[in-house]
């Protein structure tokens, strides 16, 4: 998954487990950027009686670096509060929920959003309502309207939403973690000597019909880029979840008590960075650090383990990649894509996501590049400069893009004499946005309406 359950410790703490980050120039409001951080992975829609919700004891941050040092210059911080109308019923709702203030809705959640900038923390809004989870036709029959009610427009041109959405990330989870057995290429897999898989098969979206909890904010570009005429239009974005250091189970009160300062327990910038590149023994450490500390992880980017595995799993399919790996050459292409941004002159004279020499995993977005009129889900690999790794849109096929990059298709950007294997530009887990049942939206918050628990799983 992009970052779902990607590290041993955070996989046991779903409400603090970031799953995806998106950052893009809003296609319908091109003077704004939309930033989305998803949490609580792999939600079965039929999640009653205690439906999914944000953690009241977690502080969720969306961070922006606008001067290239891998440290936050701007942070949008979200704190949640759950309210229970009637503690004497076991029900989430006692009748249809027709509005966000419905008396039938027993367990509601609200949040405060704050802006931290220039050393000053200011509350932008509080008591903002989340929507309920999508329960089913009797409880939340007009769910799209309920979700729309939870889109809040704040002074200064900021729009926010926090609540359940349809999972927009698509990935053949079952095949990838069955020893990298990509279904479209399973006949080429070494199969460990087993006589299986004689022909290619289409991918299966392991995240289909599942929900996530999204924190989405849309802000004017002028509020997030570096100030002044000399400021770069490129921003680096990542999300963090933070918990207090000490948790004590108070058996008399029947609840946890938390003490001490908040400390980071989850981080996500580029998709799959921690999941695929950072080794298992360091994933939770990585989750606790800011991007500015990523130099210590740089070798996992410049010499990714997956590049070596591809040739082992698919014998003879990636001979040029195998030679590249054997040479020990550092993958400066991956370093640029993931850790510094792509300097001008590599793709074109004007295209850049470069933020400077500080090695830091951030989702970099050049806010001066307008949305594509005909987006390509392969982003930059598909010739679409408005897509990943220039930010990330909700429909971008980041699994295929990163598979192909690691397979060597982007290495000629820094080593023109290198010829990628033919398979490098074909490798995929076999999915597209059509693998997501709930359609993406054309307007904020862009991720599809959450699946309901009555009809899903189908």
């Amino acid at each position: 998954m992009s970052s779902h359950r990607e590290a041993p410790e955070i996989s046991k703490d779903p409400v603090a487990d970031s799953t995806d980050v998106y950052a893009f120039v809003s296609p319908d409001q091109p003077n704004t950027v939309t930033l989305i951080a998803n949490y609580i992975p792999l939600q079965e829609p039929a999640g009653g009686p205690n439906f999914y919700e944000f953690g009241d004891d977690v502080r969720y941050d969306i961070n922006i670096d606008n001067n290239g040092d891998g440290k936050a210059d701007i942070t949008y911080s979200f704190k949640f509060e759950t309210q229970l109308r009637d503690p004497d019923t076991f029900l989430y709702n006692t009748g249809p929920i027709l509005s966000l203030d419905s008396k039938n809705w027993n367990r509601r959640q609200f949040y405060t959003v704050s802006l931290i900038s220039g050393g000053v923390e200011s509350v932008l809004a509080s008591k903002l309502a989340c929507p309920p989870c999508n329960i089913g036709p009797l409880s939340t029959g007009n769910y799209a309207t309920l979700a729309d009610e939870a889109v809040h427009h704040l002074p200064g041109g900021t729009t926010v939403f926090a609540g359940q959405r349809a999972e927009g990330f698509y990935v053949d989870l079952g095949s990838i973690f069955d020893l990298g057995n990509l279904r479209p290429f399973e006949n080429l897999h070494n199969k460990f000597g087993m006589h299986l898989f004689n022909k290619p098969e289409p991918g299966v979206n392991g995240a289909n019909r599942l929900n996530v909890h999204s924190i989405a904010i849309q802000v004017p570009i002028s509020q997030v880029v570096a100030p002044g005429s000399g400021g770069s239009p490129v921003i680096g974005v990542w999300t963090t979840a933070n918990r207090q250091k000490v948790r004590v189970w108070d058996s008399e009160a029947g609840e946890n008590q938390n003490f001490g300062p908040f400390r980071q327990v989850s981080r996500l910038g580029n998709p799959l960075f921690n999941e695929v590149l950072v080794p298992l023994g360091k994933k939770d450490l990585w989750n606790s650090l800011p991007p500015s500390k990523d130099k210590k992880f740089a070798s996992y980017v410049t010499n990714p383990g997956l590049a070596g595995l591809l040739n082992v799993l698919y014998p003879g399919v990636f001979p040029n990649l195998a030679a590249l790996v054997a040479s020990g050459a550092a993958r400066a292409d991956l370093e640029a894509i993931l850790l510094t941004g792509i300097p001008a002159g590599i793709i074109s004279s004007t295209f850049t996501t470069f933020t400077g020499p500080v090695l830091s995993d951030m989702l970099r977005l050049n806010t001066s590049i307008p949305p594509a009129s005909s987006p390509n889900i392969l982003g930059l690999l598909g010739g679409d400069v408005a897509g990943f790794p220039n930010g990330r849109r909700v429909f971008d096929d980041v699994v295929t893009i990163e598979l192909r990059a690691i397979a060597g298709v982007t290495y000629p950007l820094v080593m023109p004499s290198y010829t990628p294997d033919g398979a490098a530009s074909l490798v995929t887990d076999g999915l597209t946005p059509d693998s997501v049942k709930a359609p993406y939206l054309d307007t904020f918050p862009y991720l599809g309406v959450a699946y309901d628990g009555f009809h899903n799983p189908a």
Partner: protein
Amino acid sequence: MTGNDQAEGRPEGSGAPDEQGQPRVSRRSLLGAAGIGAAGIAAGAFGGLAAAGPALATTKREPAKQEPARNEEHHEAAQPAAREPVVVHVRDPRTGELDVYSGTSHTRVHDPDLAARLTRTIG
């Protein structure tokens, strides 16, 4: 918006951070917490502090390294006393290193005698 970097994304608070930027739970607040019979784990831990005055008189506070300042760490550490439950983690009874938590504050204390007293309370 500015390009000024924040300490871990948070502003400095109005409390009294030490030279490492770590807010302090002062000795006075620690004693105060003991005096008001702080609840939960602290009630047990600091129940014995009422008799630990002489030991605390020699308590040496040390900054909790690598813990940058955040706003929420400070305001609960304000004088005179934390009127909230206090949690103490005896990190190492042999060296007397203790972590003291209250609200969103944390401080590290070096006091072998206090650590020994606390350790004895749990047999």
